C-alpha cells in the first residue's frame, strides 16, 4: 500500500511548519541583541559549513541505498546505509563540537535571545538528525539480518523521505543563521 | 432607574463614535438573526412532517443562482461594515504625530502608576484630567501585560512590557469614570481599578499644584513615630514619600495618599479606619497582593496611619 509514503509526506509537511516557526523566532530576534553574543561574534561559518557537507552527502548516499534496493543489490544497500549513518554521525559530532565551544565561552540558551534562538533551532534540528540516525541504524540492523531484499520497501523509502527532509531543513537553517550573518 | 454604564453612557466624543458604531452594527446584525429566526419559524410550522404522509418530499439538490445571490449579499454587508470601520477608526484613534505624551500610565501588578511628565506629578490609580481637553497618554507596563480600559471614555489599549502604546484621552464633562484592567494579569486582576477624575481646568491646575507640594515630615507625636516606623519597617523598600529617604517605585507613591479616593486600586474607600484595616492585613482585602502582611502591631499601624494622614 502507498499509505505509508503518503503519511510521511504529510508528516514532513507538518514538521516543516514546526521548523518554520522556530526559524521565524530566530529571524524575529535577529538584530535585537543589545549586548552579549550574536551569530556574527560567536559562530564559525566555515567549520560548520564543512560539517554541513557531510550531511548533504548523506542525502546522496541514502538515495544510492534506495537505488540499490530497487536494483535488488542487498550488499550495496547495506553499504550505503552504513555510509549514510557515518556521514550523519559526523555531522552530529560537528554540531556537538560547535555547541561545546560555545558553552565553553559561556554562550548558552539562557545568555540572551541569540543563544536562546540559536540553541533551540539547532537543537531541534540535531534532535531530528539523531532520531533519523536511530531509525537508519534499525534499518541497517534489520538489513544485516536479511530484511529488505528489494525491490521495494516502505520502511527504507519512508525513512529516506524523512532523511531528505532533515537535510533540507538544515540547508534553510544554515542559510538563515550562517549565510545571512557572514555572506550577505 | 439607575443609569446603565459603559457603552450606554458614552462620555467622550470617541466613545460616542464607538458606541454608535457598536450599537448600529449590533442592531443590523440582530436584524439578520431575526430574518433567519423568522425563516426557521415558518419552516417549523409549514414543513413539519405529517405522521400519515409517507411520500418523500421533492428532492431538491440546489440552485446555482440562489447560491450566487446569498454569497453576494454578505459580501455587500461586509463591505459596508468595513467602510464604517475605517471611518470610525479615524475618529477614535487620531494619529499621535510627534506629540510628547501628557500622561504616562504604567501598569503594575495590580495597580496603575500615573505620571505627568510635563509637571512632574506622580500618583497612582487615579487619573486627573481637565474635562474637554485631549491629552496624549503613553501606556506602559513594568511586569506583565495589562490593559487600560475606561468603558465610558473610549477604547481599550494594552500595556505591554517593552512595547509602549499611545492613545488620546478626553472626557466630555467633569465627573468620575471608573475603569479597570482588561487583560488578565494574575491573582488580583479583578482589583486593578482606575478612576478617571475629570475636572474643570481650574480644579485640575489646583490639584496639580497640590500634588507637587512636598509635605513636611512630622517629627513628634504619633505621626512622628509613624514616620520613623515607615523608614524602619521596610515600607520604604517599595514606596516613595517625597521629602524623605523613601524613593522606591515598586508600590504606589504615597506622598499624597490623602487626596486619593481609594486604597489598593479600588478595594477600600480611603478613610483612616480603612487604612488601618489595610495596613493590619492587606492580604485580607486583596489576596495575593504584592504588599505583604507586615505583621505590624496595632499601635504601629495607628502610628503609620497617623503619619500618612498628616502628610498634607
Amino acid at each position, binding site marked *: 500500500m502507498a*499509505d505509508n509514503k503518503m*503519511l510521511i509526506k504529510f508528516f514532513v509537511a*507538518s*514538521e516543516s511548519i*514546526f521548523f518554520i*516557526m*522556530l526559524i521565524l523566532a530566530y529571524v*524575529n530576534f535577529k538584530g535585537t541583541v543589545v549586548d552579549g553574543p550574536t551569530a556574527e561574534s560567536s559562530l564559525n561559518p566555515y567549520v560548520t559549513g564543512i560539517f554541513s557537507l557531510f550531511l548533504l552527502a548523506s542525502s546522496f548516499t541514502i538515495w544510492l541505498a534506495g537505488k540499490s534496493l530497487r536494483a535488488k543489490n542487498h550488499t550495496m544497500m547495506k553499504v550505503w546505509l552504513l555510509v549514510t549513518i557515518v556521514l550523519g554521525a559526523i555531522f552530529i559530532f560537528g554540531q556537538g563540537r560547535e555547541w561545546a565551544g560555545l558553552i565553553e565561552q559561556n554562550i548558552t*540558551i*539562557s545568555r540572551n*535571545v541569540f*543563544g536562546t534562538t540559536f540553541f*533551540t533551532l539547532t537543537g531541534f534540528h540535531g534532535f531530528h538528525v539523531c532520531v533519523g540516525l536511530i531509525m537508519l541504524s534499525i534499518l541497517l540492523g534489520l538489513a544485516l539480518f536479511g530484511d529488505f531484499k528489494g525491490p521495494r520497501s516502505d520502511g527504507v523509502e519512508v525513512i529516506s523521505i524523512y532523511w531528505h527532509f532533515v537535510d533540507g531543513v538544515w540547508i534553510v537553517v544554515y542559510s538563515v543563521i550562517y549565510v545571512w550573518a557572514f555572506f550577505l | 432607574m439607575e443609569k*446603565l454604564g*459603559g*457603552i450606554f453612557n458614552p462620555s467622550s466624543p470617541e466613545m460616542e*463614535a*464607538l458606541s454608535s*458604531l*457598536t450599537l448600529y*452594527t449590533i442592531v443590523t446584525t440582530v436584524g439578520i*438573526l431575526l430574518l*433567519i429566526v423568522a425563516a*426557521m419559524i415558518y*419552516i417549523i410550522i409549514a*414543513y413539519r*412532517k405529517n405522521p400519515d*404522509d409517507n411520500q*418523500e*418530499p*421533492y*428532492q*431538491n439538490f440546489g440552485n446555482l443562482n*440562489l447560491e450566487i445571490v446569498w*454569497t453576494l449579499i*454578505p459580501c455587500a*454587508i*461586509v463591505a459596508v461594515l468595513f467602510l464604517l470601520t*475605517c471611518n*470610525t477608526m479615524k475618529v477614535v*484613534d487620531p494619529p499621535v504625530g510627534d506629540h510628547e505624551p501628557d500622561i504616562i500610565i504604567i501598569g503594575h*501588578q495590580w495597580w496603575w502608576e500615573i505620571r505627568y511628565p510635563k509637571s512632574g506629578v506622580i500618583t497612582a490609580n487615579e487619573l486627573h484630567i481637565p474635562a474637554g481637553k485631549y491629552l496624549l497618554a503613553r501606556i506602559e507596563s513594568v511586569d*506583565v*501585560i495589562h490593559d487600560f480600559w475606561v468603558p465610558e471614555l473610549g477604547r*481599550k*489599549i*494594552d500595556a505591554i*512590557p*517593552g512595547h509602549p502604546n499611545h492613545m488620546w484621552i478626553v472626557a466630555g464633562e467633569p465627573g468620575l469614570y*471608573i475603569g*479597570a484592567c*482588561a*487583560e*488578565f*494579569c*494574575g491573582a*488580583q*486582576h*479583578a482589583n486593578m481599578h482606575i478612576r478617571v477624575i475629570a475636572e474643570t481646568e481650574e480644579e485640575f491646575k489646583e490639584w496639580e499644584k497640590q500634588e507637587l507640594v512636598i509635605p513636611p515630615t512630622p517629627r513628634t507625636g504619633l505621626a512622628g513615630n509613624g514616620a520613623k516606623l515607615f523608614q524602619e519597617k521596610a515600607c520604604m523598600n517599595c514606596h516613595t514619600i517625597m521629602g524623605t529617604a523613601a524613593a522606591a517605585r515598586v508600590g504606589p507613591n504615597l506622598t499624597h495618599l490623602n487626596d486619593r479616593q481609594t486604597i489598593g486600586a479600588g478595594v477600600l474607600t480611603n478613610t483612616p479606619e480603612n487604612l488601618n484595616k489595610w495596613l493590619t492585613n492587606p492580604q485580607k482585602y486583596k*489576596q495575593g497582593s504584592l504588599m505583604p502582611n507586615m505583621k505590624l502591631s496595632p499601635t504601629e499601624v495607628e502610628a503609620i496611619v497617623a503619619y500618612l494622614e498628616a502628610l498634607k
Partner: protein
Amino acid sequence: MSRRLPLVPENTEPLPSLKENQGMLAWVSSVDHKQIGLMYLMVTMVFFVVGGLEALLMRIQLSQPEFNFISPEVYNQLFTMHGTTMIFFVVMPFLIGVGVYLVPLMIGARDMAFPRLNALSFWLVVFGGILIYYSFLTQSGAPDMGWFAYSPLSEKPFSLNKGPTYWALGLLATGISSVASGLNNIVTILTMRTPGMTMRRIPLFVWMILVTSFLLIFVIPIIASAFAMMLLDRLLEATFFTPAHGGSAILWQHFFWGFGHPEVYILILPAFGIISEVIPVFSRKPIFGYEFVAGSTVAIGLLSLGVWAHHMFAVGLGDVTNLYFSLASMLIAIPTGVKVLNWVATMWGGKIIFATPMLFATAFIIEFVMGGITGVAIASVPIDWVVTDSYFIVAHFHYVLYGGSMFAIFAGVYYWFPKFTGRMMSETLGKWHFWLTIIGFNMTFFVQHFLGVMGMPRRIYTYQDFPYWGSMNLISTIGAVVLALSVLVFMWNVHVSRKRGKKAGNNPWDAWTLEWAAASPPAVHNFDLVPPVRGRRPLWDLAHPEQPDEPNAKVVD
C-alpha cells in the same frame, strides 16, 4: 489507490490481537476504530463533567458582587482549567473521536489507515489530560495564567508554580495526538474509500473532517513550537518571551493565535459536518448545494489561517495591520453565511421530523448565527476595542462553542447513538434535555453580552456593585445551574438508553449514508458487503431504484 480493490479494503497483514471478545483487555489493547471512537467519547464525557463543574464553581463565585466563595488563586486556576479542558479535552477529542468512529464507516472502509497510530492518538490525549489535571495535586496547584497563557505572565518570575509547565507538557502531548489523528484521517479519506465513493460523493461530515485534519497538521505545529519555547523558557531559562531579558511579549501572542484562531474552526467544522448530516435526513431531502457547503469549508479553512491578529487589536500593531486582519476576519462571514443558508434551504420544502437530533440541529442554526453575528461585529477594529476582553466576548464564544459545537455534538450523539449501541435514546428525556439546554444556555450567556458592553472585564473573580451587574450575574448563574441540570438529564438518558433503550435496527432514521448499512453496533469488520456507491446517498439509491440521485452514474466494481 487503484480502483480494482475488493469492496472491503483489506489490511495487508492481520491486526494484532483483535478479536471479537477480548473482554476488559479491549479497553487498553484495542486498535479498532469503533472501540477507540467510543473510548474518545467516554473520556470527553468525563472531562465535560469536570470542566462543567469548574464553570459552575466560577458562576457561584460571581453570583453576587464581592462574594467570597472561592479565593482568587483558585478562581484563576478554575477558569484556566475550564477553558483548557473544554477546548482540548472535550470538544476537540469528541469531534476527533466521532470522526474516528464514523469516517471509515462512511467511506466504506474496514478501519482507519493506521489503526495503531489511532490508538496512540487516543492514549496521548488521555495522558495529556492526566498530566494537566495532575498539576492540581502539586504544591502550588493547577495553571492559573488563562488558557492562552500570555507571556510574560506565564513565565518566571510571574508564574513560579509548576502548573504552567504541566499545562504546556500536557498540551504538547495532546497536540502530537491531534497531528497523528489528522494525518491518519487524511490518509484514510484519500486512500481507503470504497469503489464509487469519489471525493464528490463523500458525506459532508467526511469533507469537514478532511479540512479539519489539514488544519490540524498545519496549525498544531505552530503551537507545539510555542509550547517548546515556553518550556525552554521555564525550565532552561531561555528568553523567548521574557521582555526583561530581551525576549518579546507579543511573539507569544502571534504564535498562540496563529494556532488559536484556526483552532476555533477545528472546533466548529466537524460540528458543521454533523449538522450537514442530520438536517437532510430529518428533512427527508438531500443537502442543498453540496458543492457549496464543501467548498465553503475549504474557504473557511484557508481564510482561518490569515486572521489570527484579530485577537490582538488592543495590542497596538498599527492601523494597517489591524485593518487587514479586520477585513480578512469579516470575509469568513461569507462562506459561513453560505453554509447557514444552505442548511435553511435544505429544510425548506422538506417534511421535517423533529426528533431530538433535529431539535438540536435546528437550535444550532439559531444559536450559532447568534454567535456568528457578534463575531462579525467584533471583527471590526473599533467594536473590538470596546468589547474585547469583556464579558461580551465570553458570551460570543460560548454561543459559538456551546450553541454551536456542543449543540451539534448533542445532535450527533442522539443521531448516532443507535449506531454506537444498537439502542435508541429516550425521546422523552431527550426533549427534557433539549428544552433545559435552551433555557439554561441562553439564560447563562445572553445577559453576558450586556455585562460586557457595560464594562465588566473577563477573568475577574469578583466585581463591585455597579448598577445591574449583580442581578445580571445572578441570572447568568441561575442559567448555569439549569444548564448543569440539562447535562444531568443527558447523562441519565445515555445511561438508561444504553441498557434499556428501544432496539434500533440498522437504520432507524431511514438515513442514506453508508454507516447505516452496517449492523448496529457494527461488527468488528464493519461491513459484510459494502453497498454499491453510485451517488452521494447510496442507501437512498438502494431504496429508490426508480429515482437514483445520479441516474447516469457509471457502475464501478
